[in-house]
């Protein structure tokens, strides 16, 4: 979230789409209700199903799963056509005025692709996706295929009239997303779409800048083969309306798991290092080459400034290497650059399983992660695990992954005794049995305490990892082996190495001084060994260590900041600066400089976040300014300090995205019709599919119904099927379908139906409801169904034989988003039959 949970209470308008917060984040959703109650705010709910969020919304639109970009593009078009835009914000805080390379072409002009498409390789040469300006040429001697840099000084037109400026391109691009086109693609009747567009953009009616709107989404947007671009479209809309950085505004991802934000920050993912640092590639010959590639250079109109905070990348990275390798990371050995594995291809989730399926991945450690159930394409994952040599599962309940060898699929195939995989199942600790911090969706780090002892023979998860690692290290110590250096030199200086106390780990993550440090400006001193107060102190000379730069400040000399419990909120705006600790630097709303006009005065004086204090010549406020504290407004430094341009990106240049600088509507991989904008280029052109036996794709001829998966408020993923309370609330899996469709098929509520996709089948009872209606997609009657996915083959109801022991992900496919590599769980094709 750019903002936070409590901050939602400050909004006037909510577009809730690709998410169902009333069901999946009920306690956070209270702040949406508070906004309704106290500000007469409105909720627009756009969803394939009428959900419990829709039940309290002021306007509901039933959208075809996967057509979100068409809807949002239509809203952008509406906002521009009706001048419902934040002009001053747009010109000064976004790249709307930036001129774009003449060679850049929009998909409207080039058969559904942007300029630079290689139809053979399904990739883009992105060199034309750049701003215009001096210095935007590929430097001599660069590697073949290297992208040009952004121009140091960008050509611009503050009147926004230049036909090649971002705003004009945006306008042209989305002028194709007419209300009629939106209706044909999304199935939302034109009148209803216009009502939604009018309602949402009404906050900018007659040039008003006081009101604020927020966009709230969840995995209903990410689970697509163009998921990142849906979110981009929303971000662009928010920039267009001047809603980013403002209390009650922003683009708010509601994350689904207690510490999914922390796991992302911590880089439990192949393509990043802690704090969103870029991983080294084999092409990075040494540390400096890596830093040169990873560090952006600023690019903005000449009279403007850009802080370009990522120019500090090397400080963050050296400090990380010092945290990982301590004294073994020196300037002489390139900060142990060789210790890091180099990454130059896609190792993401579906590739991981595909590699295991192909016999390349021999062993897997799965902790708190039910990979078989989570899918996509459960059957493929089961088939992949059959080929693994070993699997280690750390869990608190019996799960589908650890028991893949006795899944219904394996039992039906009868090849259990041929499965050579050795499976270890280790009993782990429940949340109440361990302490440590979670980072919530609002980036708040909150410490929790141990309440009960471990039951039975369970061990702490981090203890198990430590014990395994230390045993491996012992083996390398004793026996030697391939490149043991990173293993032997990894810092593990915890007071109890077998069970590292988590507060010590948090201290390491926060970072400490390795030598005496002094801030030249304030003369503040930090002694060697002391905890750092924040990431501003990080150095790239090896005198600081920090496990994750964005968490620097979480555990300072003042103690564990994540355990702070001061509930006060002096501004009344839900900032709560003394509760826990928020990254970065305890800021609660990101980009909050944008809550002020160019002169540094709040857009809405009744919702003051930060502002320029002319007397102290500083940015001050109710929140920590997300800005260079002493940069006066007249310097025109951009508020989006993490972007090299300093401004919000309506046009995302160069390598930012794999599939285009503007989002274009593409059909889901399995879709009932060809893209109405460009039928020849129907789906996301850079998405590729696996071609294994288990990777089958269906067409509308065989699978005429659109299917989407979802969560219920009564259950949590594949966890609460072990909890008798939640099982009582919703005891059985079901399939939600339109009453009209059920009538046509002769299905009555409660009867068993079989849903099949090209990959697999799923049997559950029908929930026949008026909450889903038939839709006219390009004039053709189309149905959608929804499947809640909380069941499997191990659980209370499952073990009692009350379910078909199917997993919803037996139906889903493995095509992924090219940017985030997230699979397309939503909006695939199925057929439905009465059992």
């Amino acid at each position, binding site marked *: 979230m750019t903002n936070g949970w409590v901050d939602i209470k400050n909004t006037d308008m909510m577009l809730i789409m690709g998410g169902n917060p009333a069901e999946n984040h009920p306690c956070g959703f209270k702040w949406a209700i508070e906004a309704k109650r106290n500000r007469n705010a409105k909720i627009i709910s756009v969803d394939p199903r009428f959900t419990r969020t829709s039940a309290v919304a002021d306007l509901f639109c039933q959208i075809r799963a996967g057509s979100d970009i068409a809807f949002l593009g239509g809203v952008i078009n509406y906002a521009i056509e009706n001048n419902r835009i934040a002009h001053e914000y747009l010109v000064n805080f976004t790249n709307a005025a930036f001129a774009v390379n003449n060679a850049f072409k929009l998909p409207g002009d080039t058969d559904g692709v942007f300029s630079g498409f290689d139809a053979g390789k399904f990739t883009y040469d992105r060199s034309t996706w750049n701003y215009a300006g001096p210095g935007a040429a590929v430097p001599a001697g660069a590697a073949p295929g290297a992208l040009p840099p952004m121009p140091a000084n960008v050509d611009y037109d503050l009147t926004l009239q230049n036909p090649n400026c971002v705003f004009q391109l945006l306008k042209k691009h989305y002028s194709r997303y007419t209300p009629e086109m939106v209706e044909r693609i999304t199935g939302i009747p034109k009148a209803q779409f216009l009502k939604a567009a009018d309602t949402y953009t009404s906050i900018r009616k007659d040039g008003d800048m006081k009101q604020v709107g927020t966009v709230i989404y969840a995995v209903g947007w990410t689970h697509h083969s163009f998921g990142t671009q849906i979110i981009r479209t929303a971000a662009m809309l928010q920039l267009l309306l001047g809603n980013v950085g403002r209390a009650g505004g922003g683009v708010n991802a509601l994350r689904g*798991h207690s510490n999914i934000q922390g796991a*992302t920050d911590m880089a439990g993912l192949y393509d990043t290092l802690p704090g969103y640092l870029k991983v080294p590639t084999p092409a990075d010959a040494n540390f400096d080459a890596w830093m040169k590639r990873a560090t952006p250079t600023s690019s903005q109109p000449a009279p403007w400034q850009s802080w370009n905070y990522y120019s500090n990348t090397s400080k963050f990275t050296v400090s990380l290497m010092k945290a990982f390798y301590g004294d073994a990371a020196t300037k002489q050995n390139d900060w142990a650059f060789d210790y890091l594995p180099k990454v130059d291809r896609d190792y993401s989730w579906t590739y991981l399983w595909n590699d295991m399926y192909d016999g390349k991945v021999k062993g897997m450690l799965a902790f708190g992660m039910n990979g078989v159930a989570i899918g996509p394409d459960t059957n493929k994952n089961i088939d992949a695990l059959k080929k693994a040599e070993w699997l280690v599962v750390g869990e608190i309940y019996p799960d589908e992954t650890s028991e893949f060898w006795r899944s219904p699929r394996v039992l039906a195939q009868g090849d259990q005794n041929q499965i050579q995989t050795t499976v270890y199942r280790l009993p782990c600790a429940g949340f109440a049995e361990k302490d440590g911090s979670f980072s919530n969706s609002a980036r708040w780090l909150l410490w929790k305490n141990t309440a009960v002892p471990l039951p039975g023979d*369970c061990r702490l998860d981090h203890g198990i990892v430590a014990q395994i690692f230390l045993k491996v290290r012992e083996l390398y110590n004793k026996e030697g082996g391939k490149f043991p250096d990173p293993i032997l030199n990894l810092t593990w200086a915890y007071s109890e190495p077998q069970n590292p106390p988590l507060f010590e780990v948090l201290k390491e993550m926060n970072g400490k001084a390795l030598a005496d440090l002094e801030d030249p400006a304030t003369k503040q001193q930090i002694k060697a060994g002391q905890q750092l107060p924040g990431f501003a102190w990080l150095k790239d000379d090896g005198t600081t260590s920090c496990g994750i730069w964005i968490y620097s400040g979480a555990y300072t000399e003042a103690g564990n900041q994540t355990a702070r419990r001061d509930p006060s909120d002096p501004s009344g705006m839900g900032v709560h600066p003394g509760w826990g600790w928020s990254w970065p630097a305890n800021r609660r709303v990101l980009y909050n400089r944008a809550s002020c006009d160019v002169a540094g005065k709040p857009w809405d004086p009744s919702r003051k976040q930060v502002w320029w204090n002319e007397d102290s010549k500083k940015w001050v406020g109710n929140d920590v300014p997300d800005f260079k504290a002493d940069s006066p407004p007249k310097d025109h430094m951009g508020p989006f300090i993490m972007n090299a341009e300093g401004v919000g990106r309506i046009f995302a240049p160069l390598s930012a995205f794999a599939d285009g600088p503007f989002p274009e509507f593409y059909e889901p991989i399995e879709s009932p019709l060809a893209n109405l904008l460009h039928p020849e280029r129907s789906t996301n052109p850079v998405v590729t599919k696996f071609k294994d036996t288990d990777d089958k794709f269906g067409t509308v001829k065989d699978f005429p119904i659109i299917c989407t998966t979802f969560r219920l408020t009564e259950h949590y993923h594949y966890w609460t099927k072990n909890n008798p309370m939640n099982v009582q609330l919703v005891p059985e899996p079901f399939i939600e379908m339109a009453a009209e469709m059920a009538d046509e098929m002769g299905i009555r509520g409660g009867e068993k139906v079989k849903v099949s996709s090209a990959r697999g089948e799923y049997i559950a009872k029908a929930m026949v409801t008026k909450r889903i209606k038939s839709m006219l997609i390009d004039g053709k009657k189309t149905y959608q169904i929804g499947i809640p996915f909380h069941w499997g083959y191990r659980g209370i109801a499952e073990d009692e034989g009350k379910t078909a022991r199917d997993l919803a992900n037996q139906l889903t496919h493995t095509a992924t988003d090219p940017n985030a590599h997230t699979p397309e769980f939503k909006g695939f094709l199925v057929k439905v039959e009465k059992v």
Partner: protein
Amino acid sequence: METNRRDFLKIAAVGGAAAAVFGFDVKPAYAEMAQLKIARASETRSTCPYCAVGCGTIIYTLGDKAKNVTAQVVHVEGDPDHPTNRGTLCPKGSSLAQDILNDRRLLKPQVRRPGGSQWEDISWENALNEIAARIKKTRDDSFIEKDAAGRTVNRTEAISWIGGCTDTNEFNYLVVKAMRALGVVHLENQARV
């Protein structure tokens, strides 16, 4: 508060006397209220492990944390001080007591051997030794120091880690640290899906 508040009515003499002869307790119990079950339980502040709202919870446990007590959950309730949830909890958070005290919990290490159809018990020591040996062997067998172009890559593509998203930041940090040190690149997480 006492459990029984029976110190009130004197029942009609005849009935009372007659009933007393037969040994019946004749006095109705008026306002027999349940005791506040958390009145003296220990409070521990925690965070709900489910979604990313990160609601503050208070776990009430048996006993006062004295040495001779094995704390067990009595009740779980929202933390009213927590700015986000202000004491509220959803149906999942409200049922956390059933998650903490749940008879489906895994309580001992187990192994399924190749071709096996059942779980077998295994000691922690043996399990960890076997796992460490397998990790080392797989790593040594598959470690790539240089790629086809001769560039240093120092990675193994044969070991994978998949992690859930309900464990702590500190756990994740230790995992990333250890896995990167092993050269693991198939490092993925619920955060992806």
